[in-house]
């Protein structure tokens, strides 16, 4: 087991070194690597998150993620610790980049599990400035990617939606670190050409060999509101069972989320 991990780490290191030297990656390749780096690290992962909205509201939750072998599909489990009134509330998401996500919601005080019909993923995540899509990742095929600049340390990729009527932006530009392939900043531009939304990822730490952003911020430039998520206790490759990402575990949270 330990050997395998070591092997993976060496492999990742090799890829990183290789890609840093490879100056002729295409935009699609860069975006794909960035997507991998930010949403698919390890086989699974968990983190504690403290979310703070600029108006003072907070949310504390634990997020569990599990990748599917040989597929871009993923499963997420989000368990809320606070504030007091939403304690034990939980979300379950089966992300399917190629189709509609499955989503469930558990409201403990109403003793209610409810399925959320597939719909727009660009809806606010629990009232914050983050969208569901920001938390779980946007389908790579949804946009056309263009490498517009390569600096010493970053790739700058412009993304234009294939179907503009489904999104509120006309394009967004992402700054991706060359060494880790982590997207560090994304700016969304409206039809008038004005940047109205910005996401940033900071405090990069290497955890179990995976470059990980410990602090992410979403800003709504028009209204001036912003949300910061600070992650802690991040851990990868814990070998989560599939069953904890089922409806049964919504009502009774898995130990992985409560401990």
């Amino acid at each position: 087991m330990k050997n395998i991990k070591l092997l993976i780490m060496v492999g990742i290191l090799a890829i990183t070194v290789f890609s840093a030297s490879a100056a002729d990656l295409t935009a699609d390749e860069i975006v794909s690597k960035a997507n991998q780096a930010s949403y698919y690290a390890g086989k699974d992962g968990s983190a504690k998150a403290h979310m703070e909205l600029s108006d003072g509201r907070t949310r504390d939750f634990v997020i569990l993620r599990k990748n599917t072998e040989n597929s871009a599909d993923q499963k997420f489990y989000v368990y809320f610790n606070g504030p007091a009134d939403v304690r034990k509330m939980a979300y379950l998401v089966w992300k399917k980049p190629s189709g509609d996500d499955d989503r469930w919601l558990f409201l403990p005080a109403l003793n209610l599990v409810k399925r959320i019909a597939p719909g727009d993923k660009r809806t606010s995540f629990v009232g914050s400035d983050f969208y569901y899509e920001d938390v779980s990742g946007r389908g790579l095929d949804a946009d056309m990617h263009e490498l517009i600049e390569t600096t010493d340390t970053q790739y700058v990729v412009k993304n234009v939606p294939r179907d503009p009527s489904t999104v509120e932006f006309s394009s967004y530009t992402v700054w991706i670190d060359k060494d880790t392939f982590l997207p560090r900043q994304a700016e969304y531009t409206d039809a008038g050409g004005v940047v109205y939304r910005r996401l940033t990822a900071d405090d990069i730490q290497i955890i179990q060999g995976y470059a990980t952003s410990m602090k992410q911020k979403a800003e709504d430039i028009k209204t001036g509101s912003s949300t910061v998520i600070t992650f802690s206790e991040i851990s990868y490759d814990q070998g989560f069972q599939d069953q904890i990402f089922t409806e049964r575990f919504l009502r009774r949270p898995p130990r992985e989320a409560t401990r």
Partner: protein
Amino acid sequence: MNRLTLTDFSLRHPLFVILAVLLVTVLAALQFPNVHFDNDPENMLSEDEFVRLFHHETKQKFGLYDFVIVGIVNEDNPDGIFNVETLQRVDLLTHQLLSLRKGSNGLGEVITDRSGTAWKTVDLNPTSQFKRLMNIAFRHNPNRMFDADGNSAVIGQELMSPSVVDNIKQAGMGSLKLEYLMEHVPTTREEALVIRDDAMNNPLFKGILVSEDSKAVCIYVPISEKSFSYNVAALVTELTKSWTGSDKVHIAGLPVAEDTFGVEMLVQMATSAPLAMLILFIIMLVFFRRIALIIPPLLLAVITVVWSMGLLIGLGFDVHIMSSMIPIFIMPITVCNSIHVLSEFFDSYRRFQNKTTALKHVMHELFMPMLYATITTIAGFASLATTPIPPVRIFGLHVAFGVTAGWLLTMTFVPAFIKMFISEKSLQKLCAVSSGADGCEVNIGLMGRAMRWMGIMTYKRSTAILFITVLVMGFSIFGISLIKVNDNPVKWFTEDHPLRIADTVLNDHFDGTYTAYLTLSGTPNQTKTCREEAAAIRNEAKARFETLLPDATRMFLSDMDQVESNFNRANQSDPNRCFVELTKRAADIDRQFGSSWTNLADGVNYLDSENLTFDILKQKVLAIDGVKKEDSDVLMQKLEPHSSLTGTELLNAALAVCDNFTALSFEEFVYEMKAEVTAPVFKRPEVLNYIERLQENLMQQGKVGKTTSAVDALKKASYELNYSAIEPGMSQQQIEQRDQMNKEFYSIPDSSAAIGQVYIQLEGMKKKDTLFHLVSRDYEEANIWVQLTSGDNQDMNDVVLDVQRFISENPPPVPLNAQWAGLTYLNVVWQEKMVLGMLSSLASSYIVVLVMMLILFRSGWFGLLSMVPLTVTITFIYGLIGWVGKDYDMPVAILSAMTLGLSVDFAIHFLERGREMYKRMGNWMETNAGMFNEPAKAISRNAIVIALGFTPLLLAPLVPYRTVGFFLAMIMLLSWLATLLILPALIRKLENRLFNNKMNASINGTHEKEGVK
């Protein structure tokens, strides 16, 4: 310095005077390009006025904006607006408004279709040259739809339209759908009707966004500043002008009404003032025949207006709805003075045949009456400076200035002008033409005869006149008691104005387009101490645990005592710290008493459901760590009846059994209690239930069409979340039961945690923060949107009183502070202030005028007598307003000041000249006959000129101007009647008292010595 100083000087240096006046006029006119217009009735209140500050605070806190309301009505289609074509239009219009951006040429640009790729430029410049010219003159840029940074006037994220408002609804398989009401533009009738049903099922939309009769839909376009509303309304008109068929567009809302009024006011000023001048000109021409002679009064009116407005603009004041009326008020008053001069000059010239001598005679004669009439008028208007309404203060002072200037010009400019520009020859020619006692006057016969008849009548029928006067006064005083103080900016427009029509149509279909906000807030920082919370928790703990876990309950209660005393002793009663400590201890108790069941449940939860049978489960349960044998036995025993189940179903049944025991967790209990006792005010079920009742009560009030609060959003969301669909194969009874169950979920959840969990769903919709228009982000304050079908202040006021009564009769469960905001409410406040302010300023200026009259006449009787016409006029006018049910609104209130000045003017002239004449005649009978010759005619001319001169105002498209025009005529007529009927009748009765011992008293002691040279 004597009364002729000014006139003498002007006659000696006419050129100098005229040039000086010209210079000042040019200087004043040069200020005009700096003009700023202010159409905002909100400015009727001081900037630091509490309600105004609160209004803005509320808007800020709840993210509220002023709306341009775009109503689209389709009366013909059987589905109303819910047809494919109309909805497509609504959708495109919505996205066009959202797309508005500033093009390179400064004009607005919007998308041409939903793909959003093609753009078009919109030029809102009017096609009519006249309107373009007016826009330039009044610095109105019809394409101004962007702020200094180029941002669109439309606050996109707050726009409300079916295309962009969040809706919650059921989707198949018992799932919940969160999307925009019109997420996709329908292409079939069926799809359009789905949108209709969704809209009708959402209390946040029904009656607000779409009308209950399906015939109308509203787009609420929020604008960053009220002053954009006229242009944004024009943009909507432009974008919808190509709509054919049955879709009618109506634009409404107070901001548009106010802004439109401002824009139209300017047009009004530019058209009706010159028209009034023209009519004045024609009437005076009829009276005086010589154009040259009537030019000075007209010039004088223009000059005083230019001076006053120049001063206003030069001092940096905005031209407000009030100040736009300054010219209309100044003109009659100044014209009035110069008509006195002209009339007198006519007669005198005949006598002296020399214009200098005649002028000196006239000025000598009229100096005192004019001076006092002017001072009283000034007092009337200057008293407005005591009102608490800034625009009214500015208005009053500037009219006072104009009147002063008008008087000064009458003394100087008029003589200088006559001296310079009117030849003796033309005057002689003029008088040579006419013959008879009335000299140069043209309509001798009619007016002369009428006056003579009137004079005789006042002498013979004085008792009857006075009797009728008393009757009329009684009637009027009763009328005053019927006065309704009321105003509504929308009613400033005539009934055929598009805005008035829109108002009627939309209020007919919807539950009201006039919005007021009722905000409720809990007492700030009312943090409970540990002790208070402990009592509640203790009772709940006993109820829940005592019978099942007596030992643990005892331990928990004693732990609570300890925690409580620890914290109270340390003087730290922060409930959060209490809870942290209590949670730890509760967890310890759980470990001691309930860990076995927790471990069991957890173990079961992780079991693999595949191929699970009762027997396999039995084995696996035994293998779970940390579980007492007796507990696992209980589990299996209770599962026995379900032993036929397998897999996940079996697992769920086992977990359900465990739940009964794990529910007895003290730790969870403490968390639960914490959520309840620390919940903010508007997450507490009892408070929300109170809001619900308050809203129900508001709906009882006839003028409230609709109320919307966070409770409505909460109930709707609770219903949709809890909804369970009717399943195929259910019996009729089951269906009914299910329906009933679902209906019961249309309610406020019964715990703070449940409320919080539903709210958090609403916080995170496609358009986040919509909920926070109704409740503050910390849930400590709530905002109820109250929609009134009428913008009348009276109706708003009734609603305010009704809420007050409800709250005092039904005290809320926690102390709540209720406060109103919103434009509809703001209007009530300034209205109230205005009425009180006007009343006190009227009262004070009445007294000032009385004192001045006493000084002027140096006689108590004459002083009192001079107050009679204005008293009768004011009483009658307001009595009439009460009787006919005309609302006492802004223009009516201002008119009281006008009355004071104009009525007393006639009385002064009549009494002063009457007294002079009495000295010569020695008895009233002859004096009366004399008075009803020249003096009465001068007064009559004056009354006719002013009354007719302002008739163009009656044609105005803006009601306040019509009101002013009508009442000016009324005031003139009444003052004239009162002066020429009541005064002589009173003098007849009081002759002895009035003239006894007072024979030699006159206005001025030097009178006798001064003669006409």
